[in-house]
């Protein structure tokens, strides 16, 4: 608001500005018209790669599993050690997945909806299990709960066994899988902002009501997506679990560990039969994931519809 050398100054700063026609800048769309041979090459290469490295091995698992017929397959997965492994895997997932779902909800809610000291630290630490090798994760628990470990002797004196016991397997699995739910929820929650929650609070809703009626419907597919991924990893985790398990048959073997033991004993068909259970899980996970993915996209788009032209 300073009039230099007596220039006119009006409330409308664009008076007498040269006009720029909208067509003058940009507006030229880029068309991708590579020769057909290039397109066919790129698509063909990707498809062939997928076929060789993913589809064929996965199919071979089932082929090998059923090589000796259905009865051998059933026998392999119903022998007591195999059933114990299935039970332990289900128990582990049954405890780990709900815990990590709760943690993921709380962490992503905190990160996306509040601002607080140490938020960036929390955001970084959540990714830790992704960056650390699972073997190291397992060894950390050995260090903590082993006989030479910090807590090991104290716990051992009280007859609490973590290492070489289901508790250790559950803890190690929990560590390895805790980012999955939070990682899926954080971007969705951040994109959606806090406007709806604020509106609910001003209208008199409490924390639970706000979460159940406003936040949850907006994130439910992302949550399912995260839970599915978390579950798949919890059931399939090998490295960390292998370190803390002790491989006690019928007691501390999960499905992946049991499959490895059978493999090491050259019981190929039984190994693949057990492995096929995990392969089944992978296929089911993939189907649900695909479906949830589409819905998550909608959840991310909801905000966009809402503010068409805004922000």
């Amino acid at each position, binding site marked *: 608001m300073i009039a230099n050398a007596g220039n006119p100054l009006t*409330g409308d700063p664009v008076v007498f500005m040269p006009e720029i026609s909208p067509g003058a800048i940009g507006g030229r769309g880029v068309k991708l018209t590579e020769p057909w041979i290039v397109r066919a090459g790129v698509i063909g290469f990707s498809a062939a790669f997928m076929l060789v490295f993913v589809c064929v091995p996965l199919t071979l698992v089932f082929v090998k599993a059923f090589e000796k017929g259905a009865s051998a397959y059933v026998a392999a997965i119903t022998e007591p050690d195999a059933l114990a492994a299935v039970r332990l895997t289900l128990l582990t997932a049954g405890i780990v997945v709900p815990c990590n779902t709760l943690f993921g909800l709380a962490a992503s809610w905190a990160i996306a909806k509040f601002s607080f000291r140490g938020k960036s630290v929390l955001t970084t630490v959540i990714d830790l299990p992704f960056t650390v090798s699972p073997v190291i994760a397992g060894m950390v628990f050995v260090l903590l709960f082993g006989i030479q470990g910090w807590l090991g002797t104290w716990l051992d004196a009280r007859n609490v066994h973590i290492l070489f016991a289901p508790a250790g397997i559950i803890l190690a699995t929990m560590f390895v899988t805790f980012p999955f739910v939070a990682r899926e929820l954080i971007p969705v929650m951040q994109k959606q902002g806090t406007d709806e929650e604020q*509106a609910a*609070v001003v209208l008199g809703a409490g924390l639970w009501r706000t979460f159940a*009626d406003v936040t949850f419907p907006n994130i439910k597919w992302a949550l399912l997506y995260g839970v599915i991924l978390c579950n798949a990893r919890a059931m399939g985790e090998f490295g960390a679990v292998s370190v803390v398990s002790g491989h006690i048959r019928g007691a501390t073997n999960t499905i992946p560990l049991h499959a490895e033991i059978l493999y090491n004993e050259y019981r190929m068909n039984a190994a693949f039969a057990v492995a096929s259970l995990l392969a089944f899980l992978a296929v089911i996970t993939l189907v649900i994931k695909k479906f949830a993915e589409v819905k998550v996209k909608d959840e991310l788009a909801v905000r966009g519809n809402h*503010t068409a032209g805004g*922000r």
Partner: protein
Amino acid sequence: MSIEVVRLSRRFDRTPAVDGVSFRIATGELVALLGPSGSGKSTLLRMIAGLEPPDAGDIRLAGKNVTGESPRERNVGFVFQHYALFSHQTVAENIAFGLNVRKVPKDEIRRRVTELLNLVQLKGLENRYPSQISGGQRQRVAVARALAPRPGVLLLDEPFGALDAKVREDLRRWILELHELTRVTTLFVTHDQHEALEIAHRILVMNRGRIEQEGTPREIFDDPATPFVAGFIGENNLIRADVTEPHVARWGPLRFAVNGHPTGRALRVYFRPNDVSVSASEGAGLVRASIVKTRFRGPSLELLLRLGEDRHIVSHVPRDVALPEGGANESVVYVGIRAFHAYEES
């Protein structure tokens, strides 16, 4: 319900967003909080709603100090700039939300929702989702949702900011009608002076976290108390004139009659393009000028006038005003300033 704000302050990282603001709004008033972006008006509104904690000062609603209370307990209606409708609920469910939370009986909720749908003229859309209705309709749903629990105060944060010009104009009129029907104490934040001047009974002009002036739209427009208000409200010419003799400030050939400013002082003088008269013939007190540029702006013409040696001013004249050669460039006219506001340079 009246609103009273006493020396309210809030800072973000040491920059004060709201800086010791006090004002009072009587029950049933319709008041605009007007200011440029970053002036602290939204922060002030959010503090009244309880969405933002103040660093200092008090907020009283209906005489009761609510400063420490959560938004839930304040019984205010709040309308967000980007609607903030619950995207997974229908129009009717959105409106009913505040009533459901308060455990109002089901048939009463149904009755109230129908009543509000009529009030906001959205009958027939009750089963649509927010993504299936237009921006203007969404904002009306947001207003209905805020009004449903019969709040004592309605707060609107840039309610029409995200809408296009025609819809804004319709909604402005509609808000005025709505206020006449409901008589709920209303405070709305806007950066759009036309919106404030057209709707509000009273305007609080905010700048840099402080209230620069409060008054009726007419007072604010005709009698700006500070250079900021003079510059912010309406279009303005701003020039620097010198007090060269008692009671007269000069800027080139223009002379302004001023009082109470000692000789030798520099003044900032504001005058509106509407207050610059232009005529084809000479007259008493008129100054010779030439037209540099003419621009058509619908009901009026905008003239850029040169008053000799690089001094330019802008005038808005009716499009049928008699101009030499129809307002062609370089034609000579005679101009006078009908009204102006002068402030000493600080």
